[in-house]
């Protein structure tokens, strides 16, 4: 029997220890009034309907990493306004405001352990310009993957992203190539790469590293796709069916290996780390 079966309780997420997040008063899934502590204890999954609330990197990191194991890397790599982007808002101002609010770019990365196994972890932060893939994000991702490939340490990604960052122009687009080449390094080294797709994962992030995992794991109800539904409707005038681009839709269309509720995610990852020693 896999070791994980004996230790399922130990590796389960300790929701009560997670940071608090800003919540609406009612669940967007079922409308029930939300009790913050109860929701947090359930890993920010609605106890009534199972709606998975979006989480920032500050929550994803303690959710995946063993306590006190997280060592963040390259936090001082910074974005700059390369294109003199001024409308509707100065890009430099956007970035500086978010940094002051305590967010550090759209991707944070580092090493930690999961059920005692060393891993590389990268988490997108949707709160930072929509989790858009930027030069800093690409640089942090590529460096982490290169390190993981060199040292044989499994790589875990949590994505939540609108795609490439418009305000960094074609250099943001080039990050798709940069990170995909680095995924190729993981593949060549035989290092397992587990990609967790959360709500929402679109555009250049879906069309690069997020769907290239050795195993792609989606959260229930997460919207995942290339072109967003608003742009599809503008471009084709098509009516999109309910559930279009949901995690379950992507499972049915062969794009992800499984749809896994958040409460089962950590035991699953621990099990996978056993299966890919």
């Amino acid at each position, binding site marked *: 029997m896999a070791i994980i079966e004996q230790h399922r309780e130990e590796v389960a997420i300790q929701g009560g220890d997670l940071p608090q997040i800003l919540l609406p008063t009612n669940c967007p899934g079922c409308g029930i009034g939300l009790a913050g502590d109860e929701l947090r204890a359930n890993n920010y999954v609605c106890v009534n309907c199972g709606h998975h609330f979006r989480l920032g990197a500050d929550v994803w990191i303690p959710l995946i990493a063993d306590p006190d194991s997280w060592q963040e890397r390259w936090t001082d790599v910074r974005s700059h306004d390369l*294109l003199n982007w001024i409308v509707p808002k100065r890009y430099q101002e956007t970035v500086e405001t978010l940094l002051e609010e305590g967010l550090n770019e759209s991707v944070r990365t580092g090493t930690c352990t999961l059920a005692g196994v060393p891993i590389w972890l990268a988490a997108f932060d949707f709160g930072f310009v929509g989790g858009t893939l930027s030069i800093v994000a690409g640089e942090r991702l590529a460096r982490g993957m290169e390190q993981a490939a060199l040292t044989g340490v499994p790589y875990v990604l949590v994505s939540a992203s609108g795609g490439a960052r418009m305000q960094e122009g074609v250099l943001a687009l*080039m990050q798709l190539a940069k990170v995909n*080449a680095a995924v190729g390094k993981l593949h060549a080294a035989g290092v397992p790469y587990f990609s967790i797709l959360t709500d929402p994962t679109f555009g250049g992030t879906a069309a690069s590293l997020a769907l290239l995992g050795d195993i792609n794991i989606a959260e229930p109800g997460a919207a995942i796709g290339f072109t967003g539904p608003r742009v599809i409707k503008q471009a084709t005038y098509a009516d999109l069916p309910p559930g279009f681009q949901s995690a379950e839709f992507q499972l049915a269309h062969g794009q992800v290996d499984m749809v896994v509720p958040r409460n089962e995610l950590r035991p699953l990852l621990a099990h996978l780390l056993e299966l890919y020693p």
Partner: protein
Amino acid sequence: MSVWEIVELARHQDRPYSLDYIRRLAPDFIELHGDRLSADDPALVGGIGTWHDRTTLFLGHQKGRSLKERVARNWGMMHPEGYRKALRLAHHAARFGFPIVSLIDTPGAYPGAGAEERGIAAAIATAIMEWFEIPVPIVAAVIGEGGSGGALGMGVADRVIMLENSIYSVASPEAAASIVWRDNSRKVEAAEQLQLTSREIIAMGVVEEVVAEPQGSASADYDAAAGTLDEALWRHMQPLLEQTPSQLLQHRYDRFRYIDSLIQAEPHFGPKID
């Protein structure tokens, strides 16, 4: 010329399209079809021909001129099957040691429900990743529109060049306006901020060369435009033919890994290496 005038020129229906160039570069060109899985994507042409005395694989986004042709070519917007066809042919070229020329001219991958259902995101992702493993020389040229991941899916190469009046962008101006303003009518403002003209793209270090177009743009003289493109492509291809596969792949990796190094080198710009 304003930025928007360049965008319109890059998209102009009188502009030479991929087949106009390919047939001039390799008059014996033979088109090959299909992804060997389910379909043939007419928005991407591929095939072989003799170019500078050597069998070469040509790939290119193909647009149409008449309404009927445009519909048939889907405005040069590829479906997942197109990226799978491109990779199928790239592996074919690798098997026989043929160099690859890729011509880029697309507003982007097709933004429709069918493309989503058949995995357009994963098709582009896989293409971008696998181009790094194709052990033959690849030179890409943006000949019109280089739009978004749909273009980059055909644009991972050892050298990338751009025609003078072409554009290369993270998203089409319309899509960028839709994303930033939620209003695609603000496309002109978006185009001005995106820095998508050839002069701006080469300044960012994303392409190796901007190829001059004939007086009055490439539309004015297809033969002259094809002649200068041929000369530039060959000038970039020649030194690549001398490299071993492992040298090629290492340089291709480094080209994209450090593509933002121009801004990294500038102390006030970009990521700082620690």
